[in-house]
């Protein structure tokens, strides 16, 4: 077994409105910053032991499918690094 960190990033799918991001963008603009758009995302860093990176990725994918993301509104991506 090897030690990995799987980083799961959960984003709203393109086209799903994100009122929190809109509000954050407006606050930045009120502070005088220039920006074109802003997207928010949730990121989970998961330390786990697995036989290899592929097994770690599979498990992190399963975690995203079962709980971390909601397929109705979210896309997610998984990156795996040795720890």
């Amino acid at each position, binding site marked *: 077994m090897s030690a990995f960190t799987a980083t799961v990033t959960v984003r709203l799918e393109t086209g*799903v*409105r994100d*009122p*929190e991001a*809109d*509000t954050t963008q407006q606050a930045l603009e009120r502070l005088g910053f220039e920006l074109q758009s802003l997207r928010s995302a949730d990121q989970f860093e998961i330390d786990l032991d697995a036989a290899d990176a592929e097994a770690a990725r599979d498990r992190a994918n399963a975690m995203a499918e079962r*709980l971390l993301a*909601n397929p*109705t*509104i979210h896309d997610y991506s998984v990156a795996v690094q040795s720890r």
Partner: protein
Amino acid sequence: MTVAIVRFGGSNCDRDAARALGAMDIDHEIVWHEDGLPADTTAVMLPGGFSYGDYLRAGAMAARAPIMETIRARAEDGVPVLGICNGAQIGCEAGLTPGAFTTNESARFQCEHVHVRVENADTRWTRAYETGEVLELPIAHADGRFEITQSELRHLEAEDRILFRYSTPDGTVTNEANPNGSTDNVAGILGENEGVAVLMPHPERAALADIGSTDGRVILAGLRQATVAP
């Protein structure tokens, strides 16, 4: 018969629901989710609140509690299940109903009275109404914006599973009458069978004449008649 009002950590409308059902002489019992459904359960109510602090997403944690597997199985057997507010979020997260309830378009918590139009009067929850009739019910939520893919929405419409839409008092569906940015003004939907319903407005807060409106009683009465023996 007993309506099981399922309490999770952070449920806070369970007692409102119990009081409303009590006033309607409907047998009920508040059930801690870890204790499972009572043997004589004939209907299930998922009450409002902020289960598990809305961590991750509203309803996400409660939806994965073991009791939800039991509730899913009983729902398939025809036991009525009503999810209200956080209970609706739990119902969608658990896959009892399609779609998701997420952040209000205003990004704010909203507590106000709204009007909803009955879209399907041929259900146990709406049978005292005609399609097109309007109810006045309170809402109290930050995550009530109904999101669903266009293909799933068309599927729901084709199967007549949209129960309520936010509307004006005279029953017109407009953007102005939509309090939270819900897709197509959808306020409540049905599951695979009409025994399963979820909605964001609170019928249990509109069930006692003393507090203004009893429009919610008919919806709650849908818990009364079981279609299967316990």
